[in-house]
């Protein structure tokens, strides 16, 4: 995975972080794995074993998201169960042409956790943005996931600095739009516009990522 290097402000009064993406040799050497039927497709087809496998595959991912979005382990524990119920119910909606299974599961988890935050009027744990973000280089990561995440990172790095900064505050730090307004002094409309345009660029990059994916794992626009 590439490394995102956050440079400190280069001019007085400039409060927007700058980025550069450094390529990783591992990123170029990834090889495709044999394709197997998705666990979500098997759940949708009524395969009871796949329900357990889904938990084994994505339990740690969902737990990590839940811990970040909740205030305590007890809240996270309840949230994880709600997320998995949603994932299992939504399994038939998974479309391998649009996203990897991991991203789909993360999307369902984020939606449920965001709902939980709204219900409890809580806020996720605020994580400071580090000077260097080193992206994971998981050798067991499926190639379509790797291509997706690399595309997302590159799209982030290519954004205008103020768009990138706002999107990082939202997605990395979990700040609400109002909190970003307070932190940056930008008008709410500007914050929303930066987030929307930033997400649109990432979405476009995910769609364009199909050039490096196996034919049955392409992401549609």
């Amino acid at each position, binding site marked *: 995975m590439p490394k995102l290097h956050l440079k400190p402000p280069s001019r007085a009064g400039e409060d927007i972080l700058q980025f550069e993406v450094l390529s990783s040799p591992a990123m170029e050497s990834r090889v495709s794995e044999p394709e197997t039927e998705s666990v979500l497709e098997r759940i949708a087809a009524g395969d009871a074993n796949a329900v*357990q496998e889904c938990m084994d595959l994505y339990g740690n991912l969902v737990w990590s998201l839940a811990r970040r979005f909740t205030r305590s382990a007890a809240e996270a524990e309840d949230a994880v169960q709600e997320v*998995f119920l949603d994932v299992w119910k939504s399994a038939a909606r998974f479309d391998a042409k649009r996203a990897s299974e991991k991203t789909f599961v993360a999307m369902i988890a*984020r939606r449920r956790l965001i709902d939980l935050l709204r219900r409890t009027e809580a806020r996720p744990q605020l994580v400071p943005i580090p000077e260097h973000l080193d992206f994971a280089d998981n050798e067991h990561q499926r190639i379509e996931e790797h291509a997706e995440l690399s595309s997302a990172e590159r799209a982030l790095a290519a954004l205008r600095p103020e768009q990138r900064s706002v999107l990082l505050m939202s*997605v990395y730090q979990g700040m609400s739009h109002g909190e970003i307004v307070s932190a940056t002094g930008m008008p709410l409309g500007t914050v*929303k516009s930066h987030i929307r345009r930033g997400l649109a660029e990432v979405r476009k990059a995910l769609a364009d990522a199909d050039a490096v994916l196996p034919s049955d794992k392409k992401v549609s626009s």
Partner: protein
Amino acid sequence: MSALHERCLALLADRATRDLDDAGRRELDAILREHPEWDDDGFDLAAAALDLALHPTISSMPESVRQRLANLARSWPTDPGARGA
């Protein structure tokens, strides 16, 4: 693109980034009832992909949680008609 479609996209972006309040949710639901073809999780998928890319550290789920989930998984009906999805 119409002003209503623009508004729909703005609400979908809000939904993807934890900023859709109850009024916004009702507004989005109403728009999507009128234009179901605009219902799109593209922003949600983009936010999820970014989230995964930016948070590579995955922590292990505690065994107690794993056990509760395993019980939940065992009780999950394999008959799609019984799931209430």
